[in-house]
């Protein structure tokens, strides 16, 4: 998946007003809640055929770390 598409999908999934960028932090972001984690699990499964534990996803600090978790090779 292209990075631009990934960021767009992420913005939609988190239902945030400001577009998500590589530098977006999830710390203190109200929208990054357990529902968002559920949506991420579905999104990652559908697009990358990967399972990441809910605990790891809950503790992700920002977009860069999320990309590392999914695998940098998957997002260009």
């Amino acid at each position, binding site marked *: 998946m292209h990075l631009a598409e990934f960021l767009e999908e992420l913005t939609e999934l988190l*239902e945030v007003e400001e577009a998500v960028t590589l530098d977006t932090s999830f710390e203190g972001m109200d929208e990054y809640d*357990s529902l968002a*984690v*559920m949506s991420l*699990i*579905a999104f990652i499964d*559908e697009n990358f055929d990967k*399972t990441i*534990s*809910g605990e790891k996803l809950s503790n992700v600090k920002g977009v860069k770390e999320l990309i590392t978790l999914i695998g940098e090779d998957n997002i260009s």
Partner: protein
Amino acid sequence: MAKITHIETYFPSWKMSNADLEAVVEGINLEKIASKIGIQSRFVVAEDETVLTMAIGACEKLFTTTEKSDIDYLLLCTQSPDYFLPTTACILQHATGLPTTCAALDFNLGCSGYVYGLSLAKGLIASGQAKKVLLVTSEAYSKHIKHEDIANRSIFGDAATASLIEESDNDGIGNLSLGTDGSGAENLIVKNGGMCQPSKDGSDDDYLYMNGPEIFNFTIKAVPLLVDAVLEKNGETLSTIDYAVFHQANEYMLKHLRKKCKIEAEKFHLDMTSVGNTVSSTIPIGLRQALDEKRIKAGSKVLIVGFGVGYSYGGTILTL
């Protein structure tokens, strides 16, 4: 051979709306969560109602149209029994006037419970141990959930169902595929109050705990494989079955599973808006809804799949 001949459902009288829940915690807004999980209201037992009273309600409805004197086996699925002992099924036998020649037992399963109940009923009939099995699911998770736990209170609803499984000339309950993965035990659990940790200490361990994301991860892995296994064991494909009733966990999870399993939306049951996730009762409630709305009828081939707490899972194909 055996088939399901009747299904009845029972709900407690209090319908708890999202607005009722929002009143519990100041400033909380359930709109976002409700739009995702697809639940607007659910039924909840009153303090003096229990799994037994709901089970009686479901059975009494069933007995208005069916004969009870020849029921020879009662199976009751619950995880919130009235007592540690005796088993709730024994009290239910007496309360509903079932013959004393009727065997009765409880089994403790959650969202996979209906499929396991059918598995037991089919085996009992096939082995000649029973001719007419009454399978009751009755669950009151509301008794396990902390008052302030809005997330779980918004998902789970209380309900009971009663199904009759009778000896028949055609095979109404297909081959079953069942499975267990106890490594997930801690992800949906009530820790305190059993014999391992008997004291209720006022902590969150006194109440139901659900690790939603991990349960979701488990279903994503287990359910598609289970669907494939059930179809293969019965020589069917997604195009030869008429309808699918999965455990109604929550709408978001089900929509994802439906896509992942490649089941057409028209064939896929999705209806928990007004009842919530009723644990072992979701599949028989779904079958009842689909029958009432004429989405399925006598002769329909219906794929049923249950999965959850344990982890425990199972599926089969019913011919109605």
